[in-house]
């Protein structure tokens, strides 16, 4: 067993870190998050210029190559400074790149992936509905019917991050035959500017300048060719996307832990109280020791899930565990970090409050910690409890 990163991966990590330190130091990321934007286009464009949207897309489709492991390294290093703004990269990577790679036709891949790699296309995910995210198959009310060579889609989606600026929203909808019977679910790329789409931004706790939307689709017409995967079997692309999402999110959570740890250490070394720097106080040392330990554990489970997926091995349990472990740790660490910085942590002039607000989402989405535990318990052969 070898835990060492390859030389290539090390160099990749170093180059991403250099890029983010130069282009998006924490002060700048904080300003971007606090801006009134609905979609930080400059950040998107800068990521495009750096080629980051093409990471994980094979060269034959115009990408930079690399696996989900390569993406995980990127996601962690970017999140260290960007915090929850990483969603601007993550949502399209999951809803676009990884979903398409898993389920799209060759033709679709050749058409869409090169443009995705260049940052010309923004993808948003339209899966969750008002009736539920975790219980999606029961909650799913959105319907799609093929009429005269077009999909007609009607329904409502929630929490579609970036939908307001998306070229395509990957919409999951019931496959309804003209006679009204249902046959599975479809995954359809709906152009964001289609007539019949209405959007409302949902004000939220974190990642304020990257809006998440409630999306209404009223008889939206989409070309038949925008279906991803076979008719009625859109599930495959979505599941592939969701497992990748958990794995990449575990890398992002590790990035939060990186940021929290270094900011905590810096503050404890600078701040004086009772005649010495507060790094001398044992309980604060213990907080930091916990955070460092959590980061270490997070790094390992995150790498492991990414490695399994990159190797083509089954990873549903491991991806879920990695998501559960790392996000719970990230939230705990940001909370302790804020505690150590005290008033300064609560002030909008430091990054700790941003990590704290942003990381909190990940105990809820894309799957709650509770549903993660239910899933893991079922994998252990226990009866379904819900």
């Amino acid at each position, binding site marked *: 067993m070898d835990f060492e990163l390859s030389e290539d991966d090390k160099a990749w990590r170093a180059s991403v870190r250099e890029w983010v330190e130069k282009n998006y130091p924490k002060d700048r990321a904080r300003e971007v998050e606090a801006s009134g934007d609905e979609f930080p286009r400059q950040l998107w464009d800068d990521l495009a210029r750096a080629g980051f949207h093409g990471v994980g897309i094979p060269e034959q489709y115009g990408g930079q190559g690399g696996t989900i492991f390569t993406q995980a390294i990127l996601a962690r290093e970017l999140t260290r400074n960007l915090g929850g703004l990483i969603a601007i990269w993550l949502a399209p990577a999951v809803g676009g790149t990884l979903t398409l790679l898993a389920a799209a036709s060759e033709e679709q891949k050749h058409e869409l992936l090169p443009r995705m790699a260049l940052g010309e296309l923004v993808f948003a995910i339209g899966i*969750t509905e008002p009736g*539920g*995210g*975790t*219980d999606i198959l*029961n*909650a799913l009310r959105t319907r799609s019917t093929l009429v005269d060579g077009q999909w007609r889609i009607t329904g409502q989606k*929630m*929490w579609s991050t970036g939908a307001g600026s998306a070229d395509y929203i990957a919409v999951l909808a019931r496959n309804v035959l003209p006679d009204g019977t249902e046959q599975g679910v479809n995954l359809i790329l709906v152009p964001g500017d289609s007539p019949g789409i209405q959007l409302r931004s*949902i*004000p*939220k*706790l*974190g990642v304020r300048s990257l809006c998440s939307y409630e999306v209404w689709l009223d008889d939206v017409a989409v070309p038949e060719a925008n279906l991803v995967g076979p008719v009625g079997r859109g599930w495959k692309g979505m599941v592939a996307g969701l497992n990748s999402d958990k794995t990449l999110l575990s890398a992002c959570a590790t990035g939060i832990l990186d940021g929290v740890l270094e900011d905590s250490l810096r503050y404890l070394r600078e701040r*004086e*109280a*009772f*005649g010495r720097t507060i790094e*001398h*106080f*044992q*309980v*604060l040392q213990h907080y930091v020791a916990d955070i460092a330990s959590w980061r270490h554990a997070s790094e390992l489970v995150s790498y492991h899930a990414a490695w399994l997926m990159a190797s083509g091995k089954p990873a549903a349990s491991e991806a879920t565990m990695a998501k559960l472990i790392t996000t719970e740790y990230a939230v705990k660490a940001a909370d302790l970090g*804020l*505690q150590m910085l*005290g*008033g300064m*942590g*609560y*002030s*909008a*002039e430091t990054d700790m*409050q941003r990590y*704290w*607000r942003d990381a*909190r*989402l990940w*105990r*809820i*989405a894309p799957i*709650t*910690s*509770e549903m993660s*535990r*239910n899933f893991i318990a079922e994998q252990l052969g226990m009866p379904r*409890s*819900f």
Partner: protein
Amino acid sequence: MTTTTPGPVAFDLSEDQQSIREAVDDAMKRFDLDHWRTVDKTGEFPSAFFDFAAKQGWLGVAMPTEYGGSGLGISEAAVMMEAIARGGGQTAASAVHMNVFGTNVVVKHGSEQLKRDNLPEVIAGRMKVAFGVSEPDSGLDTTSLKTRAVRKGGDWVINGRKVWISTAQHAHKILLLCRTSDPGPGENKAKGLSLFFTDLDRSRIDVREIEKTGRAAVDSNELFIDDLVVPDSHLVGVEGRGFHQLLDGLNPERVLVAAEAVGIGRAALRLAVDYAKQRVVFGRPIGQNQGVQFPLADVYARLESAWLMVLRGAALYDAGRDCGAEANIAKYLAGEYGHKSADQAMQTLGGMGYSKEYHVERLWRESKLARIAPVSPELILCYLAERKLGLPRSY
């Protein structure tokens, strides 16, 4: 079979306290969570609520009757603040918090003149008060503060900086803790600190607001004090005894902050329980899942325990007994569990908890405040370890 005897049981609220709770609960229907969400969004000081509270006589609940107060105690103030926070969160509580307890030090130690000039105004809501203790380099290490007051003729001249001063954008008066003499070698650093209750003179005090994570409508500020001239009559109590006198502000403050934290925790718990009852997933309300209901039951138990400690700390203070440990314990438990409750509520509501529309998001941001200020849980544990358990000082 047991027979029940009518009549009060230990820890029952008194009749006064019960009627205060009912009155506040009723009034908070006019200032409901939707109201406070808007206040939080605009970031403007909630004057309508402040004026309403003044009119109801809430600001003077714990003030002597001879100055227009109700002559009740910190216990009654705690019941009131719990209900205000339960109805509107920290923003609502903080809007009136300073006027309710901030002049308690003046009541206990101020001259008759100082009381007559100020207390009726504070109670009527015509005068707002700020509390000027923390400094940039001495948050928890209060006695190492640097702001100095120097005698000049019959006056004092004050220079220094203060930080995290709430409501200073609107306050007319400020209670300032300053160093007036240096302690001798080996003497306690608390010696030589003095309190002044004086005008917040904006020509001499530069007030800069600090943007922060929660409670945007009730400002927090950094103060730069430059040659502020204060008449000797504004000195509170005895020169050099300011820190000890301040305990008559700090202990009630801890009790009230604790009461508010319990109120926020209960507000969040109620939202979580309502949601868990009506949200149906996998064919049944999510509250039927043990994974959902146990954490909520746990929070309920913890909030109840914190509330008893609030009542105990307040009762000791009102009886004129030492309440340092109890006030600190109340603040510790309530701060931790108030936030835990908000956090569990956010988890219960899921995405809706993260959105701003269901209030939990605001309570979550606000409830963290009571875990940081006015004293951190870490320092309370230091205090308890030293004072109650006799363990050696660790810092």
